[in-house]
């Protein structure tokens, strides 16, 4: 028969099947075939095929076409079934489900927190309306072949920009270069507040959100804009507009507006008031317009101006105006646009380098990706391990007619469900933990509920994780031959275990490195905290009386305070104990190399300073009020002595010739231990301390060690207020200020600790899931071993030794990595500890113990199980 050679055209048949209603298929195809063979016998092959095609195309009519193929109610039912099976699976294996969903949720929560942090860092200053167009004018000075960048500018530049380059700028605003702490008072309510003095265009340019009044409130010299919180403190609920506040007990300023507090991620976040620059400049000489660098200049460019182009226009603007001879540096000006202020402000030799903040953005970003990766890997790992148990289910599903496509859909929908659950849980975690995290990071972050990107990222993440985690069971398991799976179970070879081992090693390496990091950071902080500071921080109060009322009343206050009995001594200095401001060169001494001109930290103090702060003398003596000649004496610190290289310093004469003061000679009276005033991580500044009988800005009070602070403070405040009524007693504790210098390091430390705990937690969850999987796979083996006489310890060892090896491998890997990274980190500090080898042993053994406990939890359970239970159903 010819039909052996020729069959109806396959393509036509497939095409027909594609659209034909299922119940018609058999009849139609049968008739078509019969007709085809008939035609074949009567006519040519070509004609038969052509006819077949013709007939097929004729079936393209409404009655024969499958009705709306996409809406098939079966799909819904099927998905419902998948979710039901998925849910039952989760419910049946509560332990696994907890580990899997919880682990992923925690990883996700951490990634979200880090994401929020990054979002905050990158959205700095976006609060300001003219974000895109605001620039700050910066100055590059060449000094010894290097460029130094500074924002401080001369007062003459503002008017110059307005007059000569006005076509580029919409606003030019000069702001006093330094935030000014002032006392603002409404009658008896007094508060020390930080704020800026600026020109009238400022509020408009920065786009302050006014609650009362308008943005042009600074045009009058005696006006002030207050932040909402300050206005509330001073005036309560009443409308503060047009009320008068007193600044520093000297000036009456009218409140012309109240603005919404600036957010923490704004450059001006610390400003609680804005006052007119004119107020600040009153009484300043007009001679120093081109020499005194005490202004910041902000400007708003016209929309069509480009910061780079305008920079090149203004770069030499100052050159014609600086008086010759005063400064041989050739200042170059350029504009720094607002979007770059936060992360690109670490200038090195004139160009923006890698700032610490930018480093942190990268660092946290990478950590976030890592944590997320760890959590995902775990999730995949566990899903994979679990799914092998389900190979029988796959076998049965396939035998009863499941298509591979359906199995893939099933596994994927299940992993989608779990990923979704984790996401919801993670949102919940983040919501709970955010206040604490804000505290840790020193930020004010909120959930971005309304940000479409947040949801897009979240959904994107769910999809990626679910696909990654579900792809193994979906594509691999569904490819099994049912007969093979059902007959012999699935053969889990060595090859399936290897990637999982690598994952465990990877996770533990990161965890151990983080643990080591935490320990070393904590140790470094402890080490620096225990650094001798050369004075006694405890019980020392420091504050600045901001009222002209106090001037000349040093001795009065001192006696008054001592009368209270809670104060041991009081002194003044021109700088606080917590910074190293006031540096001068121009000193000459015996045997000095003429070309050597070191800079010293120079402080003026009253005679009681040494007793108040608690100097420790190495040689010589303190200043004494009894000897008039002591006014031309000095006390130097040990490091200053080392710099001077004097063998017998006491009584030696030092000449000082600073540019701004008459030259004079001083006699060294004593040498004290170095005072750590600046960063405790840095080398100490050599200091020279001069006595003074003038009024100095900072006041120090040493509380009597016998008196408790809680009883001493009210007495001190009362005594102070008896003498000075117009300034608040806004004191600070020196030890608290000193500890605040560790904030950044402590922040890194707690964050590293937090991440380490998380990493080890996530790793252990992974390990636990894995060991229970292995134990379950080997239930029968364990049963037989026990029947043959294996001991519980023997079986415990059997189950744990594999994992212990993995953790030890991780230790060996983590050690060098951690050492390398932390050694790098430590290089940043001049005062640092040495990394000792036992830290690695400690971190490694800690991880080992935790891993062992985790593994034993399951191993002991399996080892003590009754073998009858595992063997009876053979």
């Amino acid at each position: 028969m010819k039909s052996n050679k020729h069959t109806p055209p396959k393509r036509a048949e497939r095409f027909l099947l594609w659209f034909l209603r299922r119940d018609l298929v058999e009849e139609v195809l049968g008739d078509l075939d019969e007709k085809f063979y008939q035609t074949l016998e009567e006519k040519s092959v070509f004609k038969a095929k052509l006819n077949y095609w013709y007939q097929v195309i004729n079936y393209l009519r409404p009655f024969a076409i499958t009705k709306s193929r996409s809406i098939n109610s079966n799909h819904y039912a099927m998905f419902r079934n998948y979710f039901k099976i998925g849910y039952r699976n989760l419910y049946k294996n509560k332990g696994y489900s907890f580990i899997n969903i919880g682990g992923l949720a925690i990883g996700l929560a951490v990634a979200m927190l880090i994401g929020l942090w990054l979002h905050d860092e990158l959205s700095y200053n976006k609060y300001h309306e003219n974000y895109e167009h605001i620039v700050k004018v910066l100055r590059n000075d060449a000094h010894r072949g290097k460029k130094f960048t500074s924002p401080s500018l001369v007062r003459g530049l503002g008017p110059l920009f307005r007059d000569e380059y006005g076509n580029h700028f919409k606003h030019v605003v000069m702001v006093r270069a330094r935030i000014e702490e002032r006392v603002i008072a409404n009658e008896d309510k007094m508060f020390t507040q930080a704020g800026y003095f600026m020109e009238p265009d400022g509020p408009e340019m920065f786009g302050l959100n006014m609650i009362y009044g308008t943005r042009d409130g600074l045009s009058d010299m005696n006006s002030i804009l207050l932040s909402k919180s300050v206005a509330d403190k001073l005036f309560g609920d009443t409308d503060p507009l047009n009320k008068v506040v007193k600044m520093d007990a000297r000036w009456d300023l009218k409140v012309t507006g109240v603005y919404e507090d600036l957010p923490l991620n704004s450059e001006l976040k610390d400003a609680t008031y804005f006052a007119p620059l004119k107020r600040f400049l009153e009484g300043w000489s007009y001679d120093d317009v081109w020499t005194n660098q005490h202004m910041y200049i902000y400007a708003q460019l016209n929309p069509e101006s480009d910061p780079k182009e305008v920079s090149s226009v203004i770069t030499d603007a100052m050159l014609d105006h600086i008086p010759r001879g005063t400064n041989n540096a050739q200042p170059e000006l350029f504009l720094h646009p607002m979007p770059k202020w936060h992360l690109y402000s670490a200038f090195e030799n004139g160009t923006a380098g890698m700032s610490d903040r930018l480093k942190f953005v990268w660092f946290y970003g990478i950590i976030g990706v890592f944590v997320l990766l760890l959590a995902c890997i775990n999730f995949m790992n566990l899903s994979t391990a679990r799914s092998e148990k389900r190979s029988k289910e796959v076998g049965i599903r396939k035998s009863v007619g499941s298509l591979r496509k359906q199995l893939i859909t099933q596994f994927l929908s299940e992993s989608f469900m779990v990923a979704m659950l984790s996401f919801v849980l993670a949102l919940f975690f983040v919501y709970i933990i955010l206040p604490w995290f804000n505290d840790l990071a020193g930020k004010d972050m909120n959930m971005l509920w309304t940000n479409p990107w947040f949801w897009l990222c979240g959904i994107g993440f769910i999809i990626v994780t679910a696909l990654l985690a579900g792809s193994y069971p979906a594509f691999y398991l569904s490819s099994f031959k049912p007969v093979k799976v059902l007959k012999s179970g699935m053969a889990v070879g060595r090859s399936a275990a290897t990637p999982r081992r690598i994952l465990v090693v990877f996770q533990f390496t990161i965890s151990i490195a983080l643990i080591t990091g935490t320990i070393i950071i904590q140790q470094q902080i402890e080490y620096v905290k225990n650094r001798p500071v050369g004075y006694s921080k405890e019980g020392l109060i420091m504050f600045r009386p901001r009222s002209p009322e106090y001037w000349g009343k040093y001795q009065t206050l001192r006696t008054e305070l001592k009368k209270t009995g809670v104060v041991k001594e009081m002194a003044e200095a021109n700088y606080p104990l917590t910074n190293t401001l006031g540096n001068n060169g121009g000193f000459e001494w015996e045997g000095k190399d003429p070309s050597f001109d070191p800079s010293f930290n120079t402080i003026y103090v009253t005679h009681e300073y040494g007793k108040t702060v608690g100097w420790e003398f190495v040689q010589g003596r303190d200043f004494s009020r009894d000897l008039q000649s002591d006014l031309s004496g000095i006390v130097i610190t040990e490091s200053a002595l080392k710099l001077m290289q004097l063998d017998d310093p006491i009584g030696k004469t030092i000449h000082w010739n600073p540019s701004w003061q008459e030259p004079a000679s001083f006699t060294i009276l004593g040498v004290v231990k170095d005072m750590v005033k600046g960063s405790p991580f840095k080398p100490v500044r050599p200091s020279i301390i001069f006595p003074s009988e003038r009024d100095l800005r900072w006041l120090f009070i040493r509380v009597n060690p016998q008196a408790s602070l809680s009883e001493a403070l009210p007495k001190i405040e009362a005594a102070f207020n008896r003498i000075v009524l117009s300034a608040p007693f806004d004191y600070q504790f020196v030890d608290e200020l000193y500890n605040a210098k560790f904030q950044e390091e402590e922040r890194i430390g707690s964050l590293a600790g937090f991440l380490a705990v998380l990493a080890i937690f996530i790793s252990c969850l992974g390990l636990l899931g894995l060991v229970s999987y292995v134990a379950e796979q080997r239930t029968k083996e364990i049963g037989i071993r026990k029947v043959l006489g294996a001991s519980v310890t023997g079986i415990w060892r059997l189950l744990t030794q594999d994992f212990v090896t993995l953790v030890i491998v991780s230790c060996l890997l983590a050690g060098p990595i951690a050492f390398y990274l932390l050694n790098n980190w430590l290089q940043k500090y001049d005062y640092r500890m040495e990394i000792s080898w036992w830290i690695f042993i400690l971190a490694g053994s800690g991880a080992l113990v935790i891993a062992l406990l985790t593994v034993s939890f399951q191993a002991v359970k399996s080892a003590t199980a009754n073998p009858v239970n595992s063997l009876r159903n053979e």
Partner: protein
Amino acid sequence: MIEHSLGEFEELVLLMVAAHHDEAYGVLILENLEEKLGKKINISAIHVALKRMENKGFVKSRFGGITNERGGRRKKFYAITALGKRVLDNQYALRTSIYQQIPKISFS
């Protein structure tokens, strides 16, 4: 009688089903009709008519045994139902009665 309406082509197919009682299937009907009418008919047209009449209840169907020339597929046999027969009878009676009203005129 709208629900019991019968188109011209449907009537022909129904007649053919009735003629080959319980042995009528697609290709057979097609061939017979083609022979009687002397023109080509599409098999899809036959199927449409059969399905439509099955829905109206004029014919019923059953599957037969597997045959070789149909690629291993079964034939679907159609038989006329009582309703189908009655509709056919009515149609025939209607036509006959009208036909008889034609005056005896010579049409030459």
